[in-house]
């Protein structure tokens, strides 16, 4: 939709706000409703809006499918590494208490890093799905 000026302008205003809101949900998930999964979908919604308005070729220049796959795998690794770090620190798998000096600090740190991993994987996977669907529709035309 390259010729729709209104859509383009509105999208340019909306996408940063959506991304900011995603980050808010991501980092506020500890205290209020939200967390990595929700933040990831909101982040992906912003990027999908970008795909819809500016075309996937432009979005792909920013983030390619290859990078998305890598980031998705990294998200899982971030999640798992928290569990493994806890084991290396003498606790059990995913025992946040031993991650920092105090158990409370450990719980904070653990859940924030875990949710980062979740958010990263959810956002990248959703965007990758959209890329693949669009490719399929193009190639079947």
């Amino acid at each position, binding site marked *: 939709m390259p010729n729709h000026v209104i859509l383009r302008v509105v999208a340019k205003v909306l996408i940063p706000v959506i991304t900011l809101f995603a980050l808010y949900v991501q980092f506020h998930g500890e205290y209020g409703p939200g967390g990595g999964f929700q933040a990831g979908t909101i982040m992906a919604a912003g990027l999908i809006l970008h795909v819809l308005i500016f075309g996937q070729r432009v979005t792909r220049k920013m983030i390619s499918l290859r990078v998305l796959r890598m980031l*998705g*795998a*990294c998200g*899982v*690794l971030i999640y798992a590494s928290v*569990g493994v770090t806890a*084991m290396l620190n003498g606790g*059990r*798998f995913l*025992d946040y208490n031993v991650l920092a000096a105090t158990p409370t600090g450990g719980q904070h740190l653990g859940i924030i890093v875990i949710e980062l991993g979740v958010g990263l994987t959810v956002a990248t996977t959703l965007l990758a799905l959209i890329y693949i669907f669009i490719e399929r529709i193009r190639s079947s035309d």
Partner: protein
Amino acid sequence: MEHLQILIVLIPLLCAPICVLLPGGRLPWALATLAAWTTLVLALLLLGRIESEGVLSYALGNWAPPIGIEYRLDYANGLVQLLLATVASVVLPYSYRSARREIDNDRQPGFYAALMLLFAGLMGITATGDAFNVFVFLEISSLSTYALLALGRDRRALTSAFRYLIMGTVGATFFLIGVGLLYAMTGTLNMADLAERLPAVAGTRTMDTAVAFLVVGICLKLALFPLHLWLPNAYTYAPSAVTAMVAAISTKVMVYVLIRFLYTVLGADYSFGQLPLAQVLMVLAVIGMLTASAVALNQPNAKRLLAYSSIAQVGYMVLGLSLASTLGLTASLLHMFNHGLIKGALFLALGCVFFRVGSTDVERLRGLGRAMPWTMAAFVAGGLSLIGVPLTVGFVSKWYLVLAALDQGWWALVIAILISSLLSVAYIWRLVEIAYFQPSPSRDITREAPLALLIPTWILVLANFWFGIDTRLTVGVAEQAAAALLGVGP
């Protein structure tokens, strides 16, 4: 050392994303193979620890059960984990050459990642002592199976994977509804805790509904007759290594889940005493044994033939567990392990055929006895084990099954087992006759499969004989597991 229990699930699970990050096909394969071998060592260590320390328990995140997720290991899941690790450590070395032939190059990292996810999911199902956690791992393994089945070169692989996706999702959803109802009645998801609290609410209509959903859901996934329709196509069109892996371990793990829920969570008294589950499962198992074997007789494709035979073999396992006796349960657990070895070996041999011939149509097997002597010898040896010839694992488990049936005076069952075995003689013989006694139609000579494929195949074949002669490990573990499940053992 207490971390072994989680590591056996964690190592393959961690390997999956790393496989995606690695380039090409060789590095992901090497990593996945290494992971499989590590889990084999862990499984053996864990079995040793069960022997010395009894039931092992591990609290995830240090949240004590029943609040947190507990990993709980006794002889029953120790045996299944050993089977999973053994099959994976043989199939993964095999998969390198086979996957390079059958799967596009850029899909290789994803292929190994999915294979590791499938393995981790199945490992997780056996490791956990939490009913909901079983569902989570069930989804992990199922989703990766759908992707793996769809990777086959034949375009029919896509429709068969889609059909399995629909059936598998129905099964998993039924299972989840069942677990949800159990949770509604008791307020807990920990299996041991559920077992304690369920007798108080036994006999209510909610409980009966929960059991119905659970049993139907699990039976869909383990392909018990008449819920088996997804299985033949799924096995036939998948890549060779995937078929070997899925056929050898996926349905077995679901048999384990059925045993765990019927015996540990619900208790044998409730599921077989108050509910007519024994009769229902027994009838379906016997019909499955006979009809699937009969259908296998006439299949045009060797992989499809073995797929039907798998449905019949699942019948044996379910028959054993439906007897609700120590002997029957021993036979069921034994056959789970043994049939994993048998079907693994047979499908790997067919993978060798596919590697050289490019098809597993029965017609294309002509003359292969001469062209590929080692491959076909492996197939015949696996076939003998499937039939249940003495000195093979197939004989051991059928022997125990017959003993269990006789113990309760079920002569009719013994006859059904014998008829089904005779049918398996017939369908294996049909393939042997075509491969050995019919001349090759074309002049071009098919070469023997490469050693990279033959060695893993023969390792599984020899395991068939090893565990058929030296039954101390398998029978010992299965007997203790059965005693513990029925609550008569230590």
